[in-house]
Structure formats: structure tokens, C-alpha cells
């Protein structure tokens, strides 16, 4: 529990910064909706269909509703959220080794498994807090700027589903980041690895959607499984959620196994 408190205290500032930036971004993007829905989208109709599909714009008509507009705009926040979660994970263990603070921790009566376990718990809670607050802000902003006639209860139901899929998506990146962190002995490459992890898996999703032969790639794209436009349209796709859960469990177990055997960098 001591390590849990220490972790939360260490990362609270970063968490607040991310919450404030994402909240401001959400409010800023959604507040443009009333003006955007009245703009003609005819120029966009000339774009190739596959490209529209890749950018989740297949249904242009949906952009005139708050759900459609939010679903499109918020996918970029989802990517940023994935990067935040992956960075939390990749820095969790490797940063302590790079900065040498792990020496203090190892000298305390706490097992390697507890170090990984409490860090995972703390970072999962931090991510959960970030995501919950982001979702609450997004929901109320959408209610504030929605078109007349849009149902608040329908919006609420969709947001509950998005909160769940986005939460699982973040935890997946967090768990894979944690696994990388257990392998690495320095966090120098943590940011680039996090960016690479999120963008690479996002591209998997784009390719999977554009070409039916590569549809399986969507299973390797946590962002795609949690995209607001898909969740609002088709609800929760359990096959992707189950894949994410398997990745989370396997990554967590591998992190524990690797870290137990690891030598402190001396």
C-alpha cells in the first residue's frame, strides 16, 4: 500500500495536466458542433470511399448529429488517450531504473511481485480516474451542445458503452507498456515506444477496415475496437474486448515473470 501511495503522489501532477488538456480539447472540439453541422459537407463527398472509411467518415450524414460529430472528432482524443496509457506503462518500471530510485525501493522489505503489483494497481487507478473524468466532461459537453431533439438518455447509454470500451483500450496499452517496461532498463525510448505502439496498432485497424483480407488485423488494434463512432453505431464488440482482456492478462503475467528474474542495472 505504501508503494501505491508513493506512485499516486509521484504521478498526480501528470494526471492533472492530461485531464485539463483533454477536457479543454473536448470542450473546444464539441463547441464547434453547432457551427459545423450547418456547414455543407459536399466537398468531402468527392473523397475516395476507402479514404473516408479509413478516417471513419463513411457516414457523412451522421456528422450533423452530436453523436456522429463527437464520434469522428473524439477518435483523435482516443489516440492521445492510448498514448497516455502506454506512456504510464512504459515508464512505470524503466523510469525507476533509469533514475536510480529503484535502489531505494529494492532496499525496502517489498517483493518484486509486490512492486509490479502495486505499480500496476496505482497506474490502473490513475488511468481509470483520467478516463472517467474525461468521459464525464465529454458527456456534459455533448449534452450542452447537442442538436435539438437528440435524446439525453440515448446519449447517456452510448457514453456508458464508450466509457467501458475506452477503459479497456487504455488498460490494454497500459499492460503492454508495463511489459515493455519490465524488459527495458531505461526509459529513454519510452515515449517513442508508446507512440509507435499506439500508431502501429491504429494503422492495423485502418488496414483491416480498408481491406477485407486483412480484417483480422482489427483484433490487434485496441483503438479501433473502442472508436466512439463504432461503439455509438454497433455497441460493444465483445470479440475485440475479449482479445484486449487476453492481452492484458498475458502482459501482466509476463511482466511479473520477467521482473522477478531481473537484475538491478548496476
Amino acid at each position, binding site marked *: 500500500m*505504501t*508503494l501505491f*501511495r*508513493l506512485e499516486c*503522489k*509521484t504521478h498526480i501532477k501528470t494526471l492533472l495536466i492530461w485531464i485539463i488538456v483533454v477536457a479543454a480539447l473536448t470542450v473546444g472540439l464539441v463547441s464547434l458542433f453547432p457551427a459545423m453541422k450547418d456547414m455543407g459537407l459536399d466537398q468531402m463527398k468527392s473523397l475516395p470511399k476507402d479514404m473516408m472509411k479509413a478516417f471513419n467518415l463513411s457516414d457523412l450524414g451522421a456528422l450533423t448529429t452530436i453523436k456522429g460529430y463527437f464520434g469522428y472528432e473524439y477518435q483523435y482524443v482516443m489516440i492521445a488517450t492510448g498514448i497516455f496509457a502506454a506512456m504510464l506503462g512504459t515508464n512505470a518500471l524503466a523510469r525507476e531504473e533509469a*533514475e*536510480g*530510485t529503484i*535502489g*531505494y525501493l*529494492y*532496499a*525496502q*522489505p*517489498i*517483493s518484486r511481485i509486490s512492486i509490479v503489483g502495486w505499480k500496476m494497481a496505482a497506474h490502473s487507478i490513475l488511468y481509470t480516474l483520467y478516463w472517467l473524468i474525461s468521459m464525464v466532461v465529454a458527456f456534459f459537453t455533448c449534452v450542452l451542445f447537442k442538436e435539438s431533439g437528440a435524446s439525453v438518455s440515448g446519449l447517456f447509454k452510448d457514453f456508458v458503452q464508450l466509457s467501458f470500451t475506452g477503459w479497456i483500450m487504455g488498460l490494454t496499452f497500459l499492460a503492454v507498456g508495463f511489459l515493455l517496461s519490465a524488459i527495458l532498463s531505461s526509459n529513454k525510448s519510452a515515449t517513442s515506444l508508446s507512440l509507435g505502439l499506439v500508431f502501429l496498432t491504429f494503422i492495423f485497424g485502418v488496414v483491416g477496415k480498408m481491406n477485407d483480407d486483412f480484417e483480422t488485423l482489427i483484433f490487434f488494434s485496441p483503438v479501433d475496437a473502442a472508436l466512439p463512432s463504432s461503439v455509438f453505431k454497433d455497441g460493444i464488440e465483445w470479440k475485440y474486448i475479449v482479445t484486449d482482456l487476453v492481452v492484458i492478462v498475458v502482459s501482466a503475467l509476463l511482466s511479473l515473470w520477467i521482473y522477478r*528474474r531481473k*537484475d*538491478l542495472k*548496476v
Partner: protein
Amino acid sequence: MPVIELNHISKRFGKFLAVNDVSFTVEQGEFFGFIGPNGAGKSTTMNMILNFIKRSGGEIKVLGKNVPEHDLEVKKRIGYVPSDVRFYPQLRVQDLIRYTLDFHHMKGDQAEIARYCDLFQIDVKKKFGNLSLGNKKKIALVCALVHHPELIIMDEPTNGLDPLMHARLFRILKEKQKQGVTIFLSSHNLKEVEDYCSKIAFIRSGKLIGIEDLAQMNKKVKIITLKGAHLPIEQMALIGATCIKKTDGEARFSYEKNLTQLFSTLSNLSETLDDVTVTNRDLEEQFMTMYEHQEGERL
């Protein structure tokens, strides 16, 4: 009762053998020195004792328990001062002390903590990252003491400490030793090892090259320095003095035999010499002899 028992331990990093078949025992209440040149394997040995790194071979027992099997039990009873103190820079000193106690599930003796802070002139409100090297070392010392450990392991604890703090630290360590606490000290400062340790282990290139009881070791060995144009190397060899160093106009000998014979010989030779000095061998001399001899053998 042995507090640290190393049985043929070794550590390999790839092809490099950092520690090679090291065995020694540290008894309860001992002030044990561990010395060796840079890269000799001191820190690697300590890191294995502390289970920071896994050993490649051998057995380690600390406080009667096998490590790493009983790592947690052992860590509750150990205080550790690293040579390079890198604690959480964003935390205040008081938080670091609090967290250390929390990790040990202890409330801590506030009067004792206040005494340490007063003795080491520590400002507990300051952030760790803003402290100087010496002050960081003091925090590590306090954190290693607050949970009343039975064994204190220190890696270069006086690096960065001023002479006053240095003296205060060893006063506290002597107090702890009187209470039965075992102290394991790795240091490059041979003077402090000689002044405070009762037993010393010498390590070089990963191998243990000797363990000496300081109380017995140096008093019986004399170091004789002779200066003059004609140095009596052969006459000294006849009485059993070993020449350990010879330069133009100066020769140093170590001697362990009868003193009457030594002084009688030196008296006979005095007319041909410019200067004669006879001293007890100190640790530095012992260290240099041991390591230069090994270096010579290696070359």
C-alpha cells in the same frame, strides 16, 4: 552467530566473471570492512547480499536466512546506504523518512529521528532533489537507521560528508555496534576502515585475496624505510626483512621477526644511512603491498 555467510558465490555478466568464488563470514556485532580497488567486485558482492542482482553460483545467508528465498524477512532487518544516493527527487525529506518507516510497517521513534536530523543538520522540509551530495548521503544514513536494523550495509557512506559529519556518523555507528548491530562497510577510505573496523576482507578482480583481523594484523609487522646512497638490501635480507619497494636512495622493507636483532642491525648500518624510520604497518601499506604484489604477479 554469523550475520552474513557467503559460500563460494560468483556473478557472471555474460562472459565477464565479476565475482569469482568468494566466501567469508561476518559475525554478529562486528564492524566489518570490505575493501578493494575500483571494479574489484565490492558493489556486485553487496548487490548480491541485498538481492538486487541474482547470483550465478554459491550460497548466501543473511541473519541466518537464505537469500533470496527469505528476502523480505531479511530486508526488514537491514539498513542500506548506497554509494550513489538517488532517492525520489520530488519528495521532501520528511516524506522519505515516513515512507521508509511505512515500508517497514513502523511508526518510528520520533525523538530518535529528531536526534538524527539534529545531529546531521538535516532540514526535513527540503525536497530531496534540491539537496547537495553530502546532504543526500545524510538522508540515506537516517533512512538506513530509523527502523532499528540488526545489520547495516554501507557502500562508501562518507563520500561527500564533511569531517564533522564523518565523525558524528561513526559515533552513531559505534553506538549501534555496542548495541549488537553488525556493520558491513565498503570504503576506499583506508583510514576510516583502519580506525573503526575489526576485520577486513580484501577483494581484487572478483576474487577474495585475504581476510585480516585488524587487531592482530598490523602490530606485529614493521615497515622500515632506509634512505642513503648505499642501501643495505642484502644485510636486511639476512635478518629476514623483505624489500617491498626500492627507488634511488630509498628502500622500504617489511619485517616480522625479532626486534632486538632488527635494531642491532640498523644500529650497525646507521653510519652508512642518511635516515631510518621504523613504523607499525598501517592498512594503506598492507593494501598497497597486497595489490602491488598481485599486480606484479599479473604482469
